[in-house]
């Protein structure tokens, strides 16, 4: 064996060893997708508009404070849509001052000044940043909750082109209902000022406003399990958003009844302190997921922490603490897809997938052996190695094997030998032209290379588009296809060539080859 052969064979042995090492033990290294092992698959959309609305409301409050501090008179400051603010009033005199404030403290906003109206709009890049942040935060929150609930090996990731969707895979899930409500609870805890209430009906609440509620107010239902059924009119803007909540714990109120204790971070504490100081004697409501949990009169200045008391049972307190602890969702979630696969369907799919794999393999191997004889053995060896590498790489990337993934593997079997077919046909052609076997093999591999390369690259191109387009299992299909094709470039061109060289290389006189 000459030197170049030594390293080639060495490389192949190394690849085989590496693949086996990556794959061992098989059942630990290959993750089965939900469609194969059963479980629950959810796709949810984070309603990022809502997160922006909250942010804009905060900015409105901040702006009011700043204008007040600078004793600038204005008529109204309101949020328009989810990312715009309008200041109205006779602003001409103070235009300079307002501009200064906006330039200094509202750098994330663009503004246009038009006489009695100043319109602010959130900069698009900032808006995108906030959206991304809220999705990231939602993902983190859900991960915490799912972990805390104790689901084994969940998958939680971003999904979709806009990046505002979350994919949640919960294998072998025990209790879909409970997990779902746990995830769904936005745990949006808000502290909001009470304007009036309680009212028995929504109409009664609206009466004071002639049926037309101002923009900055909102009617919110009570949670009938905690308070008497009814409605309150609340300020739309929240005093402190849920994200400034630092921790939550089980606590007791002054009568020893179960209550939820909470602490703010420094920013939240500062805001809360300022608000309570200015509003002693007024009512404050605690709103969780758009339901009023508790209404209390502000007795004193509150800064760092406090308790929510209501008619809680200890279990309820624990549930609320769990969702609060795992962090609030920055925006509500909308379920858009849910698939539950039972245990028997997955088991059936595995059986059938294996069957189809074996069937495909047997058919292709039989064809290659019958049609190309000894050279067929060569291609079968290359094919088996291809499968091994494919599985090894999948194990390395911790790829999940789904039914479409199995289809991808089966397809790879058929496509991988295509390269062999192209090479072998070329060799036959060269032999027909009267070339010696050795130079025919040489020319066959050389001339077929670019054809194989081009042909495979086009398949990869469309697989990439497929990856872009598809969701979970379809992505898995695209990935197996790409890996399979890449591996076949190595096995059908490099390995197969080495096998030829090993078989025929040492013979001095080679007059005939079996192909």
């Amino acid at each position, binding site marked *: 064996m000459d030197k170049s052969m030594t390293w080639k064979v060495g490389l192949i042995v190394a690849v085989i060893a590496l693949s086996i090492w990556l794959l061992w033990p098989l059942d630990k290294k290959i993750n089965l997708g939900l469609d194969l092992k059963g479980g629950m698959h959810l796709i949810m959309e984070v309603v990022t508009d809502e997160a922006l609305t909250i942010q804009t409301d905060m900015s409105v409050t901040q702006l009011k404070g700043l204008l007040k501090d600078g004793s600038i008179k204005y008529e109204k400051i309101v949020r328009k849509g989810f990312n715009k603010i309008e200041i109205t009033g006779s602003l001409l005199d103070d235009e300079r001052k307002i501009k200064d404030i906006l330039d200094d403290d509202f750098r994330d906003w663009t503004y246009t000044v038009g006489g009695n109206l100043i319109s602010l709009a959130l900069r698009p890049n900032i808006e995108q940043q906030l959206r991304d942040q809220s999705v990231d935060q939602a993902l983190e929150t859900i991960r915490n909750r799912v972990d805390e609930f104790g689901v084994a090996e969940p998958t939680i990731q971003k999904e979709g082109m806009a990046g505002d969707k979350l994919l949640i895979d919960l294998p072998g899930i025990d*209790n879909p209902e409970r997990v779902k409500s746990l995830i769904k609870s936005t745990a949006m805890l808000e502290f909001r000022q009470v304007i009036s209430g309680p009212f028995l009906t929504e109409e009664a609440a609206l009466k004071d406003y002639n049926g037309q509620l101002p923009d900055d107010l909102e009617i919110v239902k009570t949670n009938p399990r905690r308070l008497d059924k009814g409605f309150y009119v609340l300020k739309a803007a929240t005093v402190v958003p849920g994200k400034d909540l630092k921790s939550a714990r089980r606590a007791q109120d002054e009568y020893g009844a179960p209550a939820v204790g909470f602490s703010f971070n420094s920013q939240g504490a500062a805001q809360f302190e300022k608000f309570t100081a200015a509003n002693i004697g007024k009512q404050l409501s605690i709103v969780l997921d758009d339901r009023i949990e508790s209404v209390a009169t502000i007795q004193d200045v509150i800064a760092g922490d406090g308790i929510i008391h209501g008619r809680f049972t200890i279990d309820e307190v624990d549930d609320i603490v769990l969702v609060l602890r795992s962090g609030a969702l920055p925006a509500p979630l909308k379920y858009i897809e849910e698939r539950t*696969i039972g245990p*028997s369907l997955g088991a059936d799919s595995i059986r059938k997938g294996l069957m*189809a794999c074996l069937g495909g393999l047997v058919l292709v191997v039989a064809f290659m052996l019958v049609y190309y004889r000894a050279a067929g053995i060569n291609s079968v060896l290359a094919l088996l190695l291809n499968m091994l590498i494919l599985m090894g790489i999948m194990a390395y990337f911790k790829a999940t094997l789904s039914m479409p993934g199995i289809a991808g593997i*089966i397809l790879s079997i058929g496509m991988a030998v295509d390269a062999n077919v*192209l090479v072998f046909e070329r060799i036959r052609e060269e032999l027909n032209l009267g070339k010696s076997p050795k130079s025919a093999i040489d020319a066959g591999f050389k001339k077929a290379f670019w054809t194989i390369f081009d042909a495979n690259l086009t398949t990869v191109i469309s697989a990439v588009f*497929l990856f872009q387009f*598809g969701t979970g299992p379809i992505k898995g299909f695209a990935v197996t*296809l790409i890996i399979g094709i890449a591996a076949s470039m190595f096995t059908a061109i490099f390995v197969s060539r080495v096998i030829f060289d090993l078989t025929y290389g040492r013979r001095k006189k080679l007059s005939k080859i079996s192909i």
Partner: protein
Amino acid sequence: MKIFKEEPKIKFINKRFYAFALSGLIILAGVAMFFTRGFNMGIDFSGGTMIEVSLRENTSVQQLRNMLAKINLGDAQITQIGGENKFFIKTLASLKKLNLGNSMKMEDIEEYEIVAREIRNGIMDAAEREQAAAGKIDLNNTAEGEIARFLRDKGIADEDAKESARLAIGLRKSKTGIIGDFSALEKAGVKHRVMDLLRSSAYLGKFTFLSVEFVGPQVGKELRRKAALACIWALIGMLVYIAFRFKFLYGLSGILTLAHDVLIALSFILFFNIEMSLQVIAAILTIVGYSINDTIVIFDRLRDNLKIMKKDDLEAILDKSLNQTLSRSIFTSLTVFLTVMSLFLFGGEVIRPFAFTMLVGVLAGSYSTIYQSCAWLKVWEKYFLKRKKS
């Protein structure tokens, strides 16, 4: 072994009009189907509820339909899975239709969930409903953790509860997904104490939901757009790549051939009323990437031959190139065809629409490579040859 002892001399190009006519006819029929019946949209695209149910007793589609008619869902789409006692139930029904009222404002997907629950109720018979009402659990429709918790609540030790639940779920991994009777559980090794409890407080339903899927309506709209875009971009990708590696006209011929394959595949999906789903789109995109391979092999050869056979006319060069690569075109497709066939035959109902689309696509791809890719070059011979000479 060789199928062609020597290089064949088939005249492909002069039959191009027959080939174009045949493909044109199939595609026209497909278009007609599209406008009359349209695609059978899966819930990926249409949104809705899709349930795969396995029943213990022999049931016909009509019997199942009668059960669903009780809850006003007699018009749900019911498909029996090849000879087995398993069915797909697909419906877009809303609560209004089920006479459940619609006063609550809820997301569509929650409606679908309720629809699924109603379907479960519809399939249950009187005895099952009675058992369920009495607080018994259905071992054929309860999740592993739920069974374990149920047993624990009834005073079974944690270990035994878990083990019994695992055994029960293990039995459900059979072909039907249904546990026939309690003795099967006993045989599987469930302890006596647990067995006694199960006999009195659990029952074995006559059916099981193998899978339940809900897709919200907004998904489909986005998906349709994305699927079309992905196909178009993949085609453009092919055009650019081939134009780059060869020449623009090759690229154009290549994607016309590909578009043909996609249209033929879509036509057959329409003819056989195959359900349009994500995996069918995946198959179509795979066809786009794969069926160009043969075409590239031929174009490669054509490029060589154009240099060698300078004196011959284009038709002769095209025929020569096709004949030289004919066995390759056939066998590369054949290997993939064999594997896809295996997937179609053995892969089960879940993956069959994918396999069907691939089968049609591979056949259409092979045919169009031979009869059309080069024929298109002949069509614009004037421009093609001029380019060659310049």
